[in-house]
Each structure stands twice: as C-alpha cells, then as structure tokens.
C-alpha cells in the first residue's frame, strides 16, 4: 500500500469515527438525511474518488476507493456512497465529469421509455428496488429511446417515489416516471449487456468489500463483549464455547477480507470477473455464519436496538442479496468452467499463476 493510500484511509477513518456514530445511523434509519455527513464526504473528495482529476474527480485508484467502501461497511455509513461512486465511474467511462450530489443507478432490464419531445425528454416507466431512491438527486438508468438501448442520468425531483426499505432500514424504493417531462444534458448509446455486466460486477465488488468491513466490526464487537461481559462469575471469553465462536468469526472474517482484497487487486489490474464472483460468493456465505454466531456470543443484549451489533448484522443479511446471491455467482463460475472444457479444475484455479495451460 502506498503512503498516499494510507493517508486517505486514515483520514476517512477519522471522519467516520467522529461523525458516523451509532446514533447517526439510527437517525438515518428513521428517515432523516444526514446532510452534514454527506457534505463532509463531498468536501473531502470521497464521493468522486477514482474519477480522474483530469475530468474533475479526486483521482486516486480503485484500490483507494474500495478500501474506503470497506470502511463504509465497517461504520454502517448510512449514505449512498457506493451508488454515487459507481454512477460517477460509469459516467466517467462516457467521458463525463463527476457530480457532487447523491446519485443512484439501476442498470437492469426495465420498461423505461425515453422520448424526445422538442427540446425536452418525456420519460415513462417504473424502476423497482432503487437503493436510496428517495434521497438521490439523479438516477442512472438504461431505457429505450427510439428503440435503442440508451443510458441516461435522470433527475428524480419529478418522479413518484414509493418508499420501501431493506432489512438494514436502507431505502429500497420504487421510482415511477409517469410521463415526466425533463431536460437532459446527455443520453448515451450503449452496449446494454456489456454495461449491465460491468455494473453487476462493480456492485458485487462494492458490496463484498462493504460486507468485509461489517464482518471486521462484528468480530471487534464480539471480542470486546466477550472480554467485558461476566457470566457465571467469570469473563465470557473464558467459556470454551465462546472461544470456539470467536475463532469461527475470526476465520470467516479473514477469509472474506482476503478474497475481497484479491478481487480489488484483480479489478485494479483489469481482469476480475472470476475474482469478483469468488469474493461475493464467499463473503455472502461468511455473512450468514458470522451474523448467527456473533448474535449467539452477544446473547440477549445483542438483539436489542440499543446495541450496535444489529447495525452490522442487518446490513450483512441485506447486502448478501444485492448484486447476486451465492447461487447467482456460483452459476456464473459453473458456466465459466463449462465453457473451458479442456481445462482441469486445478488449471482453472491456478489460471493466473501458470505460464500457459499445460496440455
């Protein structure tokens, strides 16, 4: 890790430690937008990291960005940081400058129609499961314009928002454009499959990394609780079962961190499809195991709203469904293996560590 990288991580940690408290997360889950925290992130350049400074971004690389997302997961950051970053990155791919406002995206097949009407555009359609829909200013979507797959960044002010939320209390809204007329700076002709795939991978990696951060924190909390809490007249961690549980949590956490770090490193190097699949699959599995055991370590106190643990576990439960569950990514990997018929499994596993396939 470069010195620059460490600096960015340290300063982000400091910001989040100060501002992103358990109480703030509670407040946002009740429906309050944390304007101050958002502004701090924007001002410190965090929302535009890994967008080249040549087009107005903060610069830095994806490694920096994903390590910040890991911190976001660790602190249960109640903001659309991943959504804003990914949207800005997708815009940067089109040569656009980043935006400094809360953004979201939905790169799925949908029935959105965009029609050019004189100087403006008429948008019609419904987009389901939009993360942070109600708080985002704009949404990046794929729609149909003149029967062409088109990507557009739509302002949300005139959209109807049906509010819902995921297990973590994060907005997961339905966005309805009912013949909404709007100005658009630009629309983009895109290769839909390619951009959907890339977004899926970006989203999966972001979530895997955020989950790794949440796992790290769940481990920290479990150790701390086992040290502080007494039961049957001695510290909880003296109980052999508690020790076994803590070791299991530690194992899953290290496994998740390692495989996520590998995917980040592969992403930066540009060849990452299998690595991201592996990361999201493994982290999803660990999320279920750790959430269960961390709660068992914490006993009744851990299931209260007052304790912080649920801010981590509810996110872990929720995020494992985002951008592909275990079956989704296992199937992707299965198809890859099927498409490389002559390759042995060992060759598949060591594919980047061998000179060329041995035959």
């Amino acid at each position: 890790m470069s010195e620059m990288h460490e600096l960015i991580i340290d300063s982000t940690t400091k910001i989040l430690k100060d501002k992103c408290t358990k109480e703030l997360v509670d407040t946002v889950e009740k429906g309050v937008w944390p304007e101050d925290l958002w502004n701090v992130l924007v001002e410190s350049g965090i929302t535009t990291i890994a967008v080249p400074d040549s087009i107005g971004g903060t610069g830095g690389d994806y490694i920096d960005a994903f390590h910040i997302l890991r911190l976001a997961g660790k602190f249960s950051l109640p903001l659309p940081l991943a959504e804003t970053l990914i949207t800005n990155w997708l815009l940067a791919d089109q040569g656009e400058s980043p935006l400094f406002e809360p953004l979201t995206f939905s790169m799925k097949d949908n029935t959105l129609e965009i029609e050019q009407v004189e100087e403006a555009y008429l948008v019609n359609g419904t987009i389901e499961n939009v993360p942070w829909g109600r708080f985002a200013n704009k949404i990046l979507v794929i729609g149909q314009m003149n029967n062409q797959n088109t990507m557009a960044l739509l302002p949300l002010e005139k959209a109807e928002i049906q509010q819902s939320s995921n297990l973590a209390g994060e907005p997961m809204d339905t966005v309805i454009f009912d013949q909404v007329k709007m100005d658009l700076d630009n629309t983009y002709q895109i290769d839909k499959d390619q951009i959907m795939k890339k977004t899926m991978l970006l989203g999966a990696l972001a979530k895997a990394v955020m989950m790794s951060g949440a796992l790290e924190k769940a481990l920290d909390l479990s150790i701390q609780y086992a040290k502080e809490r007494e039961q049957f007249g001695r510290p909880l961690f003296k109980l052999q079962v508690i020790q076994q549980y803590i070791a299991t949590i530690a194992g899953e956490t290290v496994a998740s961190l390692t495989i996520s770090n590998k995917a980040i490193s592969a992403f930066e190097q540009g060849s990452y499809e299998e690595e991201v699949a592996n990361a999201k699959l493994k982290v999803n599995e660990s999320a279920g195991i750790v959430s269960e055991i961390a709660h068992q370590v914490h006993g009744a106190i851990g299931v209260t709203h007052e304790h912080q643990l649920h801010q981590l576990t509810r996110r872990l439960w929720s995020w494992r469904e985002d951008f592909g569950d275990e079956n989704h990514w296992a199937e992707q990997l299965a198809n890859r293996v099927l498409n490389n018929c002559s390759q042995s499994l060992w060759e598949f596993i060591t594919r980047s560590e061998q000179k060329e396939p041995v035959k």
Partner: protein
Amino acid sequence: MNKLELPIFDFTEEQKVFRNEVRSFLQEEKEKGTFESKCDSWLSGYDPAFSEKLGQKGWIGMTWPKEYGGTERSAIERYIVIEELLAIGAPVAAHWFADRQTGPLFLRFGTEKQKQEFLPKIVKGKCYFSIGLSEPNSGSDLASISTRAEKVEGGWILNGAKTWTSGAHQSHYLVVLCRTEKKDPKNRHKGMSQLLVDISSPGVTVRPIKFLTGEEHFNEVFFENVYITEGNLIGTEGNGWEQSMAELAYERSGPERILSTFPLLEELVRLLKENKDTDRLKEAMKLVTSLISLRLMSLGVAKYLEEGKDVGISAALVKDLGTKFERNVAEIARLLVSSVPSVESDIEIERYLAQSILHAPGFTLRGGTNEILRGIVAKGMVAG
C-alpha cells in the same frame, strides 16, 4: 440411551376431527381479514381482540378444570390448537404466557383464591401475564438474580429489576422470581419465591427494550418499594426456584420451538410447486423432513409429560434442534427464491423472509440459550 427414546403418538379419531374444526375456524378468520399471517407470531402478534375470540372458542386454558372456566380437554388437544395457530401464523402473543405458563402455575401452586380470581379471566382471553426471570446482570446465570422482597406487615416490599420480560408493556400482571432470603453463596437457588405483581401498582416502571427491528416485545421492569400483599405469593415461600424450573420443561418442547418460521416454509413450498421446480422443491423437502422428525419428538415429549414422566433432557433436545431448524428455514429459503426480503414488502415471501431473518437471533437465545441447553443435556446423559 433407551431412556431418551420417545413414544410415537397416534391421534384419535376425535382429535382428528378437532384439528379440522380448529383449522376451519382459523382459515375462515384469515379469509375474513381478522388477522394477517406472520412468522414468530407468538412473540410479535399481539391482538387482544383475537385472543378474546379464541377465549370464546374455549381454546385458552382448555385443559383447565371447568370450575375455573376451562374445558378439561387433554394436553394433546391443546397441542393441536397451538400447532394450528402457529402454522397459520395467527396473533397469539397477548395471552401466550398466561395460557402456557401462568395458568398451569396457579393450578399447581396457587391458592384457591388466586385460581378463582385469575383463571376465568385468562380463559376469556382478557387477562395477560408476563414472566419476570432474567435480570440486567444475570445473563444465562439465572441463579445469580438479586431482585429482593422484604417481609413487612401483611406482605412484602419488592425492589429490583427484571429484563427481557416479553410483553410486560401490554400485560396486566407479572410473575416475579425474587429473593425472600439473603443470598447463600453455597446454595444460590435457596430462598427464592414467586410473587404476583399487578403491573399498574405504584412503584412498577415498565421500560420497553427495543428489539433490533425497532419493534417493542421485551421490557425492563423496575420495582421501587412495590408493596405486594401476602395473598400474592404463589406457592411456597422459599420454593420459587423449584417452581420456576418446573415451568421450563413445558415451554421447551412445545410447537413454538419448531414452527416460528412455518409460514415462510409453507409459502416457499407453495411457490416452488407453482413453478414446478422439482430441484429446489427437493431441497425444501429436506427441511420438511426435519420438521416432521421434530414434531414427532415434540409430540413424544408431550405424551410423556401427560403421563407425568421426567422429560427434562428430551425437552431440552427438542428446543435445541427445533430452534436451529427454525433459523435454517430462513437461511435455506433465501437461496431457493430470488427476493429482496423486506418487512414492508407486498410480496408474502419477502415479508416472511424478513420476519424470519430478523427474528432468528432470538430463537436460539430465548428461554435458555442453546449452549446452556446442550450443557444440560450432556450433563444429564453423562450422569444417567
């Protein structure tokens, strides 16, 4: 080993007819919109109107003597009612502890006056009880409690606090396990008594503890010089520990340790059948088989309980396996359907999944953690 073997229970023809009767009633009520099915409804489905309806059917306190309003039906018939209620996810939290624990406690240990005063009201579904066992610093170590009642003229003065008391914010009474003698470090179970506390008494403060979902099910209850009249002692002074422990076997092996997530499993199987997805249905059927084995065990324990046999170890086993199963349903179901679990969703499976996942941590903690239960089982087996 053979002492762990459980009998196979066969339902009588009358019981089969009765099950149909209960089921028809519940299905009609659900269709009428009287209630909405949910998972873990015995903790989170509070609905006094529905409890009163069940009271009118005679399905609360149904094994109790007729003189107290009961219908003197068998424990197995009660089992059928409980199963049908949980399987459909009906709201039964209001009267749950009164029916399961407090009524039987009065019948076993209560004075005639207590029985006459409380049982008929419970049976009507109008009088709700909570149980005050755990304390802020006790954790799983119940013998360490320190809430204390001091003998005074005509009764006791109660001071201390209880925690994790389900439903206390909505109940009328609380059964409190407290010390009526000084703590004896050599016999920590000695000198405890069970007192009945009217929650509206002066000096009682109920402070809901929010569950991780933000819902209120549990409470802290504080006692500050609460005066308890002599008539509100339950059973024998000093015998509180034994009386409380005797209750536990009843609560450990009931259908509520197996069926808390059944509405999710039902809906999952319905969807997979609709999609004719044999492959995933196959995985769901593995869960169903586990459920069937747990029901057989739970019924075997119920049969032995009715015969007055000691089922402490078996009941602990059912609770351990049953609550793990309840959680597994959620963890496996989520991989058999694509969904965004949300308590607010319009889609049934998404709601049930959300309820099950969020409530799951409680399954293996409430009523004695699974680790404690397994310790009880092992010690019993090694000693046996």
